[in-house]
């Protein structure tokens, strides 16, 4: 029965839905024709704005929202007060809480444009791009390592992360942003930034392992990752679902899927050096010096190990099957083919690994060796940074052929296909030639005529600021996705986006200056029953901060945040239990080297080493995605392990102490002053009388200020956006 059930099932599917055993254009057209009318495949038409006259309306968005609310007999919620508003919008746009000074200034500014001024400042701040990057990197499943068992570091991948931060900060037009990431090398030759942008195609996991390689299966995995990402990230269509059969719901045939793959038939992964000659000269010297510094220590370690290795090897040799030993004793060049085979087996059998050596070594030698290893690792921390390279893709001189694959099996090839965009968008698939295939794809995606691109992105912006998308499934605008809760709003935003030069900041600003955004989270009477899921946005959604933003906020409040931007990913101290999870067959004594400068541990979470198989508990417990598949929207789960990491971890205790020290330095010993200051720093407001009393009671019963700080940082109000 092996695999036959799979075959049978797929065979049935093929028969049932006009499959693509052999490409039959007429059948394909018929298949698509039946599904062509789905709303998201029609180009958005800019809707007329409703002629509602209401003081509530500040922006066109408000008019469209109010129209929808009224149709459901709903009313908007009252606006948030100014104190909470600055906290909300600062957390939203920067991922950090406002400082007490920023709050005071905003409260003092009674001018009519005070809020707009605030927005201008926040959108211009460099933290704006960092905030956006966190979201974008979720969607493109970015990490600093390959994943799978070896999970090797990608030493140059961070340049793509920094490119994303800079792009959002510079309000790079989204059409250009697409073109650079998909085809930066083809469309902007010689432009380093555009080359780095193509790291997009390599953001996902890749399985690299030793031994015999199935090159075709490896290549198929690589191409599938790239093609799937185009669908999820830019198109909002689950094209990957058409890998084994025609899409079950959307107008994408299996041939269409492989046409998309064929676009990458001329693409290969490549780290392209972008160093200057001076950098190269300096690097060559530095690496030479570095190796010289390692050498004496390596030699001393080898000298300690030598007698034991020898002894172990001799013992293993003595235990060899006589035939194998004989073969091994024959000089290499004189061995018969049979002896060559036996000698190879013999060599493998007498091999010695590190833990065997340590096992037979006397304790004092082991200690000496361990000391030397420490010295070695200290030197290794000073290893010169590799020469700058773009973690990129490039054009393959000899393009590879692409076939439709039966059930997606790399070894089961059906018809040959040419590169092309899905048939529903161009009946001749003819816009993609043989050269610059990705450029053609990018140009098509970045076109104002594309029915999906602008909608998908404005929906992401909206979801980012409002908590849920107008389309609740941001990576899937197809039939299995959720329908838009307000298509007029979506289409108005999409057309506005294109009309305003694909400016993300413009749409972002319009959303956060709309009255819909300014609403409180408290539902109006009846709203909970009439609109339990808040599909019509008659209130602001409750939104929990991501683990990263919680950590960053804690650092900001304790005064420890190191705002340095960009560069190599940083390792922070991890618990022994987490260290032990790093897979290694080699000696596990230096798997997580830490920089000596403690300030580096207090960088924003965006810059922490994102290792696919080793997740930091504080972040992972708060639903940080695993970076294996595109994550358009993080799940929000609430469970006991979050409480344990936020109450008991070393990180939290240290930060509470720093926080308490900061309060003492600002207030002296006056505990009321400290409590007020703590509220202002952590919650952006002063305590209410009952809260002040609670704090006083706690402190007068011998409670410590650092424990008060810990409680405050665990509070619901701290981890939820107002």
């Amino acid at each position, binding site marked *: 029965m*092996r695999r036959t059930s799979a075959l049978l099932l797929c065979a049935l599917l093929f028969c049932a839905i006009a499959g693509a055993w052999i490409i039959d254009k007429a059948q394909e057209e018929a298949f698509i024709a039946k599904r062509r009318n789905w709303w998201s495949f029609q180009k958005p038409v800019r809707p007329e704005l409703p002629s509602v006259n209401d003081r509530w309306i500040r922006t066109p968005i408000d008019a469209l929202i109010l129209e929808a609310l009224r149709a459901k007999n709903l009313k908007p919620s009252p606006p948030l007060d100014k104190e909470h508003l600055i906290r909300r919008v600062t957390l939203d746009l920067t991922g950090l809480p406002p400082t007490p000074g920023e709050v005071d200034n905003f409260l003092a500014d009674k001018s009519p444009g005070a809020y707009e001024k605030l927005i201008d400042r926040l959108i211009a701040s460099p933290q704006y791009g960092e905030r956006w990057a966190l979201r974008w990197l979720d969607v493109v499943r970015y990490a600093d390592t390959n994943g799978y068992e070896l999970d090797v570091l990608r030493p140059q991948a961070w340049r793509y992360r920094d490119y994303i931060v800079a792009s959002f900060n510079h309000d790079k037009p989204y059409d250009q942003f697409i073109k650079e990431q998909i085809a930066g090398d083809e469309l902007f030759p010689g432009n380093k930034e555009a080359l780095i942008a193509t790291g997009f195609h390599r953001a996902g996991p890749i399985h690299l392992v030793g031994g015999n390689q199935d090159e075709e299966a490896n290549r198929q995995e690589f191409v599938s990752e790239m093609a799937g990402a185009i669908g999820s990230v830019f198109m909002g269509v689950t094209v990957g679902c058409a890998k084994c059969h025609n899409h079950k719901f959307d107008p994408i045939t299996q041939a269409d899927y492989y046409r998309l793959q064929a676009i990458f038939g001329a693409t290969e992964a490549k780290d392209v050096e972008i160093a200057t000659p001076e950098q190269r000269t300096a690097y060559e010297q530095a690496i030479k010096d570095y190796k010289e510094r390692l050498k004496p220590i390596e030699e001393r370690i080898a000298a300690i190990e030598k007698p034991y290795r020898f002894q172990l090897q001799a013992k293993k040799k003595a235990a060899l099957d006589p035939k194998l030993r004989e073969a091994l004793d024959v000089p290499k060049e004189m061995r018969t083919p049979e002896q060559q085979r036996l000698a190879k087996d013999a060599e493998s*059998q007498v091999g010695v690994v590190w833990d065997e050596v340590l096992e037979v070594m006397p304790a004092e030698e082991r200690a000496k060796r361990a000391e030397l290893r420490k010295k070695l690792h200290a030197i290794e921390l000073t290893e010169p940074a590799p020469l700058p390279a773009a973690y990129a893709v490039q054009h393959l001189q000899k393009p590879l052929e692409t076939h439709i694959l039966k059930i997606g099996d790399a070894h089961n090839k059906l018809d040959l296909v040419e590169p092309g965009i899905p048939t529903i968008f161009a009946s001749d698939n003819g816009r993609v030639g043989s050269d610059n295939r990705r450029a053609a794809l990018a140009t098509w995606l970045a076109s104002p005529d594309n029915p999906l691109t602008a909608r998908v992105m404005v929906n992401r912006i909206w979801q980012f600021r409002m908590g849920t998308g107008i389309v609740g499934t941001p*990576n899937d605008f197809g039939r299995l996705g959720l329908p838009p809760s307000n298509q007029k709003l979506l289409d108005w935003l999409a057309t506005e986006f294109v009309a305003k030069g694909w400016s993300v900041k413009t749409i972002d600003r319009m959303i956060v200056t709309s009255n819909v955004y300014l609403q409180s989270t408290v539902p109006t009477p009846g709203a909970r029953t009439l609109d339990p899921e808040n599909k019509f946005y008659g209130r602001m959604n409750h939104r929990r901060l991501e683990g990263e933003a919680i950590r960053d906020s804690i650092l900001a409040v304790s005064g420890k945040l190191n705002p340095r931007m960009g560069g190599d990913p940083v390792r922070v101290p991890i618990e022994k239990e987490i260290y*032990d*999870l790093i897979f290694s067959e080699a000696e596990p004594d230096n798997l997580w080297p830490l920089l000596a400068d403690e300030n580096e541990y207090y960088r924003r979470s965006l810059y922490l080493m994102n290792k696919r198989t080793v997740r930091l508990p504080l972040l992972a417990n708060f639903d940080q995605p695993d970076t294996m598949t595109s994550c358009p929207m993080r799940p929000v789960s*609430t469970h006991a392990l979050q409480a344990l990491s936020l109450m008991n971890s070393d990180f939290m205790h240290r930060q509470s102490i720093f926080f308490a020290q900061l309060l003492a330095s600002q207030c002296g010993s006056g505990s009321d002053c400290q409590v007020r200051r703590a509220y202002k720093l952590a919650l952006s407001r002063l305590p209410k009388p009952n809260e002040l009393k609670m704090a006083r009671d706690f402190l007068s019963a011998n409670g410590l200020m650092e424990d008060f700080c810990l409680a405050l940082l665990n509070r619901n109000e701290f981890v939820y956006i107002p």
Partner: protein
Amino acid sequence: MNSSIFRNGLHIPSALTRRDVLRGAAHGFGALALQQLLARDGLAKQRVNPLAAKKAHFEGKAKSVIFLFMVGAPSHVDTFDPKPALKRYQGQQLPASFGKVESQFTKGDDPLLPSPWEFKNYGQCGMPVSSLFPHIAQCVDDICFIRNFYTESVVHAPAMYQVHTGRILMGYPSLGSWVTYGLGSESENLPGYVVMPQPEGTPEGGTPCWGAGFLPAVYQGTLLRSGASPILNLQPPEGMTPQRQRATLDLLQKMNDLDTAENDSEMAARISSYELAFRMQSHAPEAVDLSKESEATKKSYGLDQKHTIDFGTRCLLARRMVERGVRFVQLYSGGGPVSMQWDAHKDLVANHEKMCGLTDQPVAALLKDLKQRGLLDSTLVIWGSEFGRLPMSQSGNGRDHNPHGFTMWFAGGGVKGGQVIGDTDEFGLNAVDGNHMRNFHATILHALGLEQFQLWYLHNGRQEKLTDFGGTVIKEVFA
């Protein structure tokens, strides 16, 4: 599972409030004070336990699972699947009719290697087991061996992912995550899904083997160790006294109550999570404290012997977890350095005698202990690995990976013991009418009363399921 909130993959706690109100009075450290406080202030609100037990789709015999995973792949032809033909063909090449058999390191041209161990028949069923597993051999009447499983990669990590998550790719929810997503947990004071890796190191597949994938983090496996702090960050750091901690927690919960409006289930869930955490703080150390176990029990698990103490302790902990209502226990033998894995590329004899020696007695003790306590009927015990090993040799005296056919076994949880299902060919290379991991998973879900197609989660436009497009429940497994 059909609430629209589940469909969207959104806020899990709010979905749970409606049906999964925390049962019974809150008790334990911190929570008690809060309970009194809330009662006094008339603020008692709905409390939410995101892992509260849920009803199965139908009545399943098994209530919990212990999955014993042997990292690196034990050889089936040397343990549970005897192949006398290997002796007859010793030293010869695999017949050409088998085609080219490429594994991770070998190309299929090494000679056939007979098993160095003798097989004898055991139990009333007369089940053949090799001399490597003298203790497990005593339990065969409770065990159902399935000899025709196969996986689809010759490489450890992808094959491990397939056994744990159903796919050879990283990033899919693990079996334990699906089960706790479907059933919650009977334990209110312990995590619902615990994991005990080999102390020397992690399996090749690493944390994704017990990860929640795209499911919410509440369904991830939680590492569990013996000792005073069995769960990461369970205890406050040194210097924080219980009194201080209690006062801090009470202050926090009082403040949280100010932040929580009537009917605000999400905030209520957060308050509950602190109560749960602090119940865990007092219950988890007790749950891993073996001092109350009788000497006879400890001895039976091999806690008195150097080679069995580690795995024996973890097996005993597994029983204690199941006793306390933990839904899923994932236990690993092997991990880290090559010498601590079942990965016998060379010197099969030394490797398997060591690894079997570490685990044989503890595994048998676990089965007997569960049975004696009346827990075996409701506990599904699974023994298995990512693949088996080739009938040909590697390096002269070892074996390379064989995903094409290998043995795993089930016991307890409604399983009919003393039987063999399926077979491999005469050399043990290929499964005959093989069982895919989809069937393996469908069968496990079935034992628990879960219907594979009803257990799904919408992710990136797909209703993702453990068994993808569906497996076949191996019905013969059950009594």
